[in-house]
């Protein structure tokens, strides 16, 4: 029975003990588990294939609704067919009100995912329609009913007064509907201004025809930007005319040659948001362009980055509806998945042997309809985190509407059109900046303090000082952060000269006191025991500290025109935040001092005594013994103390959160704030959507912190271990 109990205890404790250890390692593996999907490559595979319900004419448009259950195909005969994406069965068929004897000659969608479509007709008018879906729950089963609606009436709207439309473009807003069209090299633009009767809420439209300039060559592609500022017209010789249509009389602002060498542009689309243009050419290149303000302040269409898919002709570019990514197809049947921000070709894969006739993407970018000949295939797409890549996280990225590549962290999005800026650089920089200023204060104070405490201090005083330092270590950082943010930050702002003069006055005061003390006759000096200097210095520090602070105002009016803060901002031109790196350095330095102090003190104190006795016996002064013997021996321990202190400073959250403005800027200026990795997690994690790229990047930030501190601490621990062995062998 006792044996049994003994064995049970053995196994129980072993399982319990190992369980705890496993639980601890779980932290690392779980963080990794959440981060890994970020770097997993995408995957597409064919789910089903079927032949389409017979349609007259070629496809003009292929789309799916939110759930990717129902697809829509619009063909050149003016037929709109909704079908089941899983088996191709027809759900609804609708004929656009195309007048007799007229054909659909042009087709466009407003913005990807807006579902607002325009069919340009051969008689110069256009039909505007929308596909929409109603969701009902009969018997707790989701039922999606598609329908076509005509928000501006079924009557075609005249755009070009009889010229057959080759290309159309449309943009809708609260106040105005803008339609652009082209016939050969002739451009047309119609604006329908909306006036809402505020009583009946009825909309009356007033039509306005805008005179447009001529373009050289036949227009092959027409794109209208969402702000209705620019109209892009691609003409026969691959020149892209950029028209300013905000001005009273639209004019060609610029003509930009899009193609390089002898290639021709074969596909031109907007990226989500309508800021960037994507141009695919006959040699398999895809380039991204957007308007950038150059040095002289003029806007110019600039090539931002390009991708190379293969050697085949890019036949179509399909922008995603929710992200800054797109798909590209070439004539060899290769599909490419891209993310522009991340500058990343996520995947290229061959999906068909023959030329693909048409493709459409699901709003959630999780499905793809591919039509080849009369066959339709539904491909499922797994592409969770295309916007994350090494370069997106750590390199400068040229974001949309920015003048040049930059490091920016700006994760919050007001809408889908926003380009998430997920550079970890400003955060990593902020982390190191905060740690640097903290270490600047903490390292000298802590190490000097440790040297004195371990080597010179009287044991009686040491017993009193050590608990004080331990208490300092135990102080909750939230209290330090609160004091730093609400008391220290305004105090520092009001007493800047005083704070800086402390740096000079305190050492000066100490030396002055020491000088006179050492001149005093031995009878007086002898009354204070050896090793009590620190206690005597407390009043000295207080007096000189008070002196510095009370002189602060005088110094301000003497040297800085009365207000040092405004002197810094106006005369030096350095921006000043109230909650800045100086405040963080002081507060976090305070938090780090005890960590470094305890470990360094331990290392110095445990240097074997016979070493220093030997040195002293040979006639060295205590100070010589300290610098030449003790510190040399203890230096690895001091080094590891600094490392561990650094680890603490890097991971500290509350102080930085409360004592800085948390703006993710990259500037080493001591008078500006920063945002650190840890504070960023605390700020953004609660609002982050589970499983999103942003969520996983925050996990990545946590993993980086974990690994950094773990590695630093392990190194420090190893150094200390070696040191302990060395001591024991001495």
């Amino acid at each position: 029975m006792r044996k049994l109990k003994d064995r049970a205890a053995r196994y129980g404790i072993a399982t319990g003990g190992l369980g705890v250890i496993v639980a601890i390692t779980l932290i690392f593996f779980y963080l990794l588990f959440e981060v890994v999907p970020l770097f997993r490559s995408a995957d597409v595979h064919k789910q089903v294939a079927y032949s389409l319900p017979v349609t007259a004419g070629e496809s003009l448009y292929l789309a799916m609704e939110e759930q990717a259950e129902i697809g829509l195909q619009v063909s050149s005969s003016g037929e709109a067919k909704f079908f089941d994406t899983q088996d191709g069965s027809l759900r609804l068929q609708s004929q656009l009100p195309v007048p007799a004897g007229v054909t659909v000659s042009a087709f466009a969608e407003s913005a990807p995912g807006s579902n607002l479509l325009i069919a340009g007709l051969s008689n110069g008018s256009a039909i505007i329609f929308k596909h929409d879906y109603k969701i009902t729950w009969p018997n707790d089963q989701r039922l999606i009913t598609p329908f076509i609606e005509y928000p501006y009436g079924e009557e075609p709207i005249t755009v070009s007064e009889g010229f057959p439309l080759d290309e159309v473009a449309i943009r809708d807003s609260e106040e105005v509907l803008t339609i652009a069209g082209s016939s050969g090299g002739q451009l047309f633009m119609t604006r329908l201004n909306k006036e809402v009767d505020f009583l009946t809420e009825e909309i009356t439209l007033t039509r306005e025809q805008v005179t447009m300039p001529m373009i050289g060559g036949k227009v092959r592609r027409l794109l209208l930007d969402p702000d209705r500022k620019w109209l892009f017209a691609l003409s026969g010789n691959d020149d892209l005319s950029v028209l300013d249509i905000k001005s009273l009389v639209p004019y060609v602002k610029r003509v930009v040659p899009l193609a390089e060498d002898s290639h021709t542009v074969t596909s031109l689309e907007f990226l989500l948001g309508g800021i960037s243009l994507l141009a695919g050419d006959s040699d398999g290149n895809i380039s991204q362009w957007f308007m950038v303000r150059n040095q002289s302040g003029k806007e110019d269409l600039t090539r931002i980055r390009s991708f190379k898919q293969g050697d085949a002709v890019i036949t179509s570019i399909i922008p995603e509806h929710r992200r800054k990514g797109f798909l590209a197809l070439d004539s060899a049947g290769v599909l490419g998945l891209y993310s522009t921000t991340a500058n990343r070709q996520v995947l290229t894969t061959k999906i068909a042997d023959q030329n693909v006739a048409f493709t459409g993407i699901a709003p959630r970018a999780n499905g793809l309809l591919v039509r080849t000949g009369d066959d339709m295939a539904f491909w499922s797409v797994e592409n969770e985190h295309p916007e994350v890549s090494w370069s997106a996280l750590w390199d400068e990225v040229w974001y949309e509407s920015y003048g040049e590549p930059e490091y920016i962290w700006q994760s919050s999005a007001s809408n889908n059109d926003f380009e998430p800026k997920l550079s970890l650089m400003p955060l990593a920089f902020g982390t190191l900046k905060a740690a640097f200023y903290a270490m600047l204060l903490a390292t000298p104070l802590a190490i000097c303090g440790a040297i004195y405490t371990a080597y010179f201090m009287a044991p009686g005083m040491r017993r009193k000082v050590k608990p004080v330092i331990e208490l300092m270590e135990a102080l909750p950082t939230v209290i330090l952060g609160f004091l730093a943010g609400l008391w220290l930050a305004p105090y520092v702002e009001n007493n800047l000269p005083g704070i800086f003069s402390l740096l000079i006055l305190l050492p000066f005061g100490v030396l002055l006191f020491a000088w006179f003390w050492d001149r005093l006759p031995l009878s007086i000096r002898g009354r204070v025991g050896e090793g009590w200097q620190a206690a005597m210095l407390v009043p000295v520090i207080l007096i000189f500290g008070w002196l510095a602070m009370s002189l602060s105002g005088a110094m301000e009016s003497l040297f800085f025109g009365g207000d040092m803060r405004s002197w810094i901002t106006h005369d030096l031109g350095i921006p000043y935040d109230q909650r800045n790196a100086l405040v963080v350095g002081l507060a976090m330095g305070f938090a780090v001092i005890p960590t470094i102090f305890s470990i360094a003190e331990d290392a110095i104190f445990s240097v074997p005594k016979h070493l220093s006795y030997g040195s002293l016996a040979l006639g060295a002064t205590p100070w010589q013994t300290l610098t030449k013997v003790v510190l040399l021996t203890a230096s690895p321990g001091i080094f590891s103390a600094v490392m561990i202190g650094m680890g603490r400073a890097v991971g500290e959250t509350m102080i930085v959160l409360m004592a800085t403005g948390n703006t993710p800027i990259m500037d080493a200026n001591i008078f500006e704030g920063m945002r650190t990795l840890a504070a960023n997690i605390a700020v953004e994690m609660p609002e982050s959507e589970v499983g999103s790229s942003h969520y996983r990047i925050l996990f990545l930030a946590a993993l980086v912190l974990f690994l950094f501190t773990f590695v630093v601490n392990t190194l420090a621990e190893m150094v200390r271990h070696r040191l302990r062995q060395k001591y024991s062998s001495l």
Partner: protein
Amino acid sequence: MTMKITVSNWFKSGSPWVWLNAGAVAVSVVMVLGLLALIAVRGLGHFWPTAIVAADYTIPGNSQVQVMGQIADVEEIPAQRLVDAGLPKPGNKALIDRQLIKVGNRDVSGSDFVWVVKPWLQNVSHPKDAIALERREWGNFYGFLKDVRQNGSVVASGTEAWAALQDSIERAEDIYSQIYKIEKKEIGHINSGLERLRLKERSLELKGTNTPEALADIAASRAVLDAEYKVLEKELGDLYAAFTRDSIQAQTIDNNIVDINVSKIVRAYQPNAMGFFGKVGFYGDKIWEFVSDDPREANTEGGIFPAIFGTVMMVIIMSIIVTPFGVIAAVYLREYAKQGFVTRVIRVAVNNLAGVPSIVYGVFGLGFFVYFLGSHMDQLFFPEALPSPTFGTPGLLWASITLALLTLPVVIVATEEGLSRIPSTVREGSLALGATKAETLWRVVLPMASPAMMTGLILAVARAAGEVAPLMLVGVVKLAPSLPLDGNYPFLHLDQKFMHLGFHIYDVGFQSPNVEAARPLVYATALLLVIVIAVLNLSAVAIRNHLREKYKALEI
């Protein structure tokens, strides 16, 4: 010449360097003690009834206004800053005193603090009959009492008004506590019962056992609760009518007449008329309110009892989790595992985990406990409450477990140290007497190591009580509607969010709309937290020292 040589000799002797090092210690000590003093002074000072000052205030070029209130802060600023702010320069002095006066009356004047430049204050007086009213909303009121009314008709005015007001407030307080009891306790109880019935119904529906009899049962219980509710509602209506019976009329310093219902007043006092002992009594009262009452006015007034309670609950649950696991892990590492490379690696790893930033634990807790474990638990055990999560959202349990994980290294390290200090002779003696290893462990080793475990636990508690960053992710809220422990089934609400002292400091100090008003309370909260942590730490130190002495004796 001689002087110079002496200085260089002095430096050569190394003495100045020693002094500078001593200075570093002195600076550190001054910093710690100064910080504690700052918190103590600001935190404790807040409750003292400072005098109400009344004065005329004239910004040159503007018309004279009258201000009355309590001085909250004084600071010296360069006169240049006033000029920069577009004000005239007062005199030719470079530095100007300015005072922050808490003028209250937010409902009348809009803001309850004003900065005044001291030289522009005239005719400063301390009117004896000035009153300060602490109200449930709109902050403090400062003014002069005119009369007290019942149902609109004056019952006392002039010198009797003050006594009548005190009686009236006492009566309102009494009714308020009855209302509070009904609203929070009894109606809360009924609501929790109704919610349980709803969940039961849904759960029957999910299981497909929602037979008419079962549903009728539920409907019957619901009817009982509804009937009880009706009674309470009636009672509450009567109480409210009685509650708002009295009102007062008061006059502000700038001669506005204000009607204030007594039900809105928490406390009325005349600091200028109070004697020293009256002030001390008032002070004690305020401190008691601070530690025992619920917060008012978006946490900027009143007490912090729910935060204290939440912190204590969290720490207790955390201790229950961390102690056995920490001790078992330490015992395994020290007594059972084969000492070698692997145990050394584990030891280093455990040690280093203590240095991993706490926010990382928070991220882990949120991802693994809340979103992963919690949502799976919800699907398994609480499907009836879905889609609103039960454990799939931050709460007390997850916060406690996360902090248990965070403090695990502390307990393991401390326990291991305790175990390693027990001389092997003691173990060998026990084994030689025929005890098994488990018996030795249970009867001899663990009791001897118990002070070490205690030390570890105390340090863990001290760390947990001050930790905020991970809690922000896994369970704290700025204002919890109820305590995590109450009279409603299942009594201990592990799934609820809770309030925490540390988070309270962060939230009130930084997220509050009225930071100026909240600041003294934050200092007081910080002081409380510092005291708790200091006491815990010092007791850990004391236990450790005691322990060392004990084993020294054993070794001899």
